[in-house]
């Protein structure tokens, strides 16, 4: 019993068994997090560096907490306050860190494929914490865990992913994962923010009408507009986006059925999601954050063991 991969670079190269193993291990870690002492000694011989070349609140804190709950030693690296500013390359930085006997690297980078590049050149295990517009595997896993917790199974579940699909690594990882686990996916948003051949490439349904997506789905996973990754105007204004594609309680009321609301954060309130929906009774946004720690513990635990056995 172990993962089929040495690194977690994306959902794309995981098997269904890998995903099931991660989710079932996460269930046991979630129980650990309810105990008076929320800590197990499993990774006390492991040192992990959190290498963040891009800003993050949730993912970084969630990983750091997961590492500490597993008794691993942790190092934090933020590009903005490091020698990367002085011109050190990614590979040099990582090799320097690894020479201090670090076993695992958790990395976020604005360039798609950065962790894949690193995986080819260094011996340590790599966990992708988001690379450009490619993948964000632990987010997809925690989304799946939260949906499974809510609905019991992912099989046959209808998930609408609404917003900036084009620039979202969360969308891509979710589409891969939900496809592997037998859920149905529909993406919705402005035509300029949805890749043209997404149906042919990934087998998802497409609509440019948010109401239609809501009508169809059990779960709406709402995404932020990634202005930092858009180098040309793709819609007229945030206000117009909100009017056409934002999710308000009036819109949900007009649909007239219970739809579970998810969001990977950070939320731009009043743009993709109105406050009363984000904080409403059908929102599981904070459960997602809670589950994130357990899911990341499972990933780190399984990878640490995988690498030490081989």
């Amino acid at each position, binding site marked *: *019993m172990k993962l089929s991969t040495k690194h977690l670079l994306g959902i794309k190269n995981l098997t269904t068994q890998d995903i099931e193993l991660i989710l079932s291990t996460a*269930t046991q870690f979630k129980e650990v997090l309810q*105990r*008076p002492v929320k800590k197990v*000694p499993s990774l006390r011989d492991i040192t992990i560096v959190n290498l963040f070349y891009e800003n993050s609140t949730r993912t970084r804190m969630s990983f750091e907490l997961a590492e500490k709950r597993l008794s691993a030693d942790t190092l934090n690296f933020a590009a903005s306050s490091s020698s990367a500013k002085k011109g050190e390359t990614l590979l040099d930085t990582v090799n320097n860190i690894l020479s201090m006997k670090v076993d695992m690297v958790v990395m976020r980078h604005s360039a798609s494929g950065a962790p894949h590049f690193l995986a080819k050149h260094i011996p340590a295990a790599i966990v992708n914490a988001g690379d450009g517009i490619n993948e964000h595997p632990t987010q997809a896993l925690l989304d799946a865990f939260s949906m499974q917790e809510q609905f019991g199974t992912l099989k046959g579940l209808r998930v609408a992913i609404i917003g900036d699909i084009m620039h979202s690594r969360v969308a891509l990882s979710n589409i891969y994962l939900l496809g592997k686990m037998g859920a149905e996916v529909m993406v919705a948003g402005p035509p300029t923010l949805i890749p043209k051949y997404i149906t042919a490439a990934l087998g998802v349904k497409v609509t440019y009408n948010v109401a239609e997506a809501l009508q169809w789905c059990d779960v709406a996973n709402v995404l932020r507009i990634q202005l930092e990754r858009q180098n040309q105007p793709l819609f007229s204004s945030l206000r117009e986006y909100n009017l056409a594609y934002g999710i308000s309680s009036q819109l949900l009321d007009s649909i007239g059925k219970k739809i579970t609301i998810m969001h990977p954060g950070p939320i731009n309130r009043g743009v993709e999601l109105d406050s009363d929906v984000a904080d409403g009774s059908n929102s599981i946004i904070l459960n997602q954050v809670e589950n994130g720690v357990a899911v990341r513990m499972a990933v780190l635990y399984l990878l640490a063991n*995988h690498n030490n056995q081989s």
Partner: protein
Amino acid sequence: MAVVHRCKAAIFIKIFELVKTLLSQQQIALTIKRLAHQILENHISLTDTVFIGLQPRGIFVSDRLINELQQLVSPQQIVYGKLDITFYRDDVRQHLHAANKTDILFSIENKQVILIDDVLWTGRTIRAALDALLDFGRPAKVELCALIDRRFSREFPIQAEYIGRSIDTFATQKVLVRWAEKDGQDEIVLI
């Protein structure tokens, strides 16, 4: 020559078939009944006593033991949980074991805890269980109940208070505990 060969083969088959039944289904039932009585002798009121079965295979013993105790005292008096020790194992880098459900929905603070497992051998599982247990609080006392005690093979200074059957074994031998739910019938064999 042929005779010698046949003789060797016969010995080989004899050794190969050396599967000794330690406890039959009926004996297991009687032993668990006795263990239940022994525990009650020491914990007559059960007010401060909690039972914790060890995952994955110890819970087959603990489920039967609790069943037995429920015939003897009122079921409301019995506090029973299950503990998984996977994340506390000392061989975590050698084998990856599947984690099982831990289910302790009560405080063990100042309680008399009775840990229940199927086979006590090296003592390493119990060592890990003690570590895991302390993360739930500070018990007043911890006792151990084991259905089979493979004595003289301990690697830690650990002993059981309640023992179903003590046996002497070689390290190369295996004690197989079969349960009706999983393996067809209750039976303990030595191979």
